[in-house]
């Protein structure tokens, strides 16, 4: 089982590319690494039988919060955004934000050294991280382009951009 948890930015790229009429079609995304894209397409090809693509409710809230800024340039209409939540693909899960998952926050550093500077880990980023930790660190990849998440020690070698 190999799950891929997405941060808000990469979730938006997936929604943008996803075509509900062809649920298991390979995605083609330019803005992420070939390695991450391959892993995402592997999950889709296996129809979620060997792992899921996952996001936190906070990722969807962040997209709503900046809908015009993030979604409009990607041609994500409100109808498409809503449809993705109403009827997500078989290979996609929204991981609940619950008290059991919050316990993992103690494993996420409050700040990291990024480009030589001590930088706080924003709570929204920490919530993406605990979504990954809740799935089991050995079996999860976190897809994120966030420079802070990428240098978190707890996610060492588990983040792909």
């Amino acid at each position, binding site marked *: 089982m190999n799950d891929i948890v997405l941060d808000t930015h990469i979730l938006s790229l997936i929604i943008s590319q996803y075509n509900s009429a062809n649920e298991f079609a390979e995605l083609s995304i330019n803005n992420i690494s070939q390695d991450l894209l391959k892993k995402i397409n592997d999950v889709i090809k296996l129809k979620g039988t060997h792992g899921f693509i996952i996001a936190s*409710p*906070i990722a*969807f*809230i*962040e997209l*709503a*919060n*900046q*809908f*015009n*800024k993030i979604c409009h340039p990607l041609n994500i209409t409100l109808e498409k955004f*809503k449809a993705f*939540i*109403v009827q*997500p693909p078989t290979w996609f*899960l*929204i991981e*609940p*934000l*619950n*008290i059991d998952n*919050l*316990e993992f*926050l*103690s494993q996420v550093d*409050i700040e990291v050294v990024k480009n030589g500077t001590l930088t706080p880990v924003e*709570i*929204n980023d*920490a*919530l993406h991280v605990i979504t990954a930790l809740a799935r089991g660190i050995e079996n999860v990849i976190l897809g994120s382009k966030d420079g802070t998440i990428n240098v978190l020690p707890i996610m060492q070698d588990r983040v792909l951009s």
Partner: protein
Amino acid sequence: MDELYISNNELENLLTRDQIPDKIAQKMSVGISSIADLIEIIEGSRKSRNDKTAQLCNSCKQHSSNGDIYLAELDGSLLLKNLFDDEIWDKFANTKSNPLMIARYISLKKADETIWWSDAIYEQMKSIYE
């Protein structure tokens, strides 16, 4: 039994100092709070470099099992029901609001009959934050 909205400060007092509002202590009411409030309280402890994540989560679970409080969590079903609610969407979409504030609204709004608490909880919460 009545329901009573438990604000962020009240939840923190309950979880860290065992200060239980009278109506709840007397078993006249059950307190309802949002997962967003617990996140903010945990984050406050982390930022003050006194991480109480485990203690706060354990205390919350204990008070939940005692029947003192119910923590409204957030899942895909509730997200679907309430993120696109006219009032919530119009209030928060494209506003760059704090996502935890939006999570608070989504988790507490009585979307349908599967939510067992009354509309009054949501209104009590709004009266604090609006």
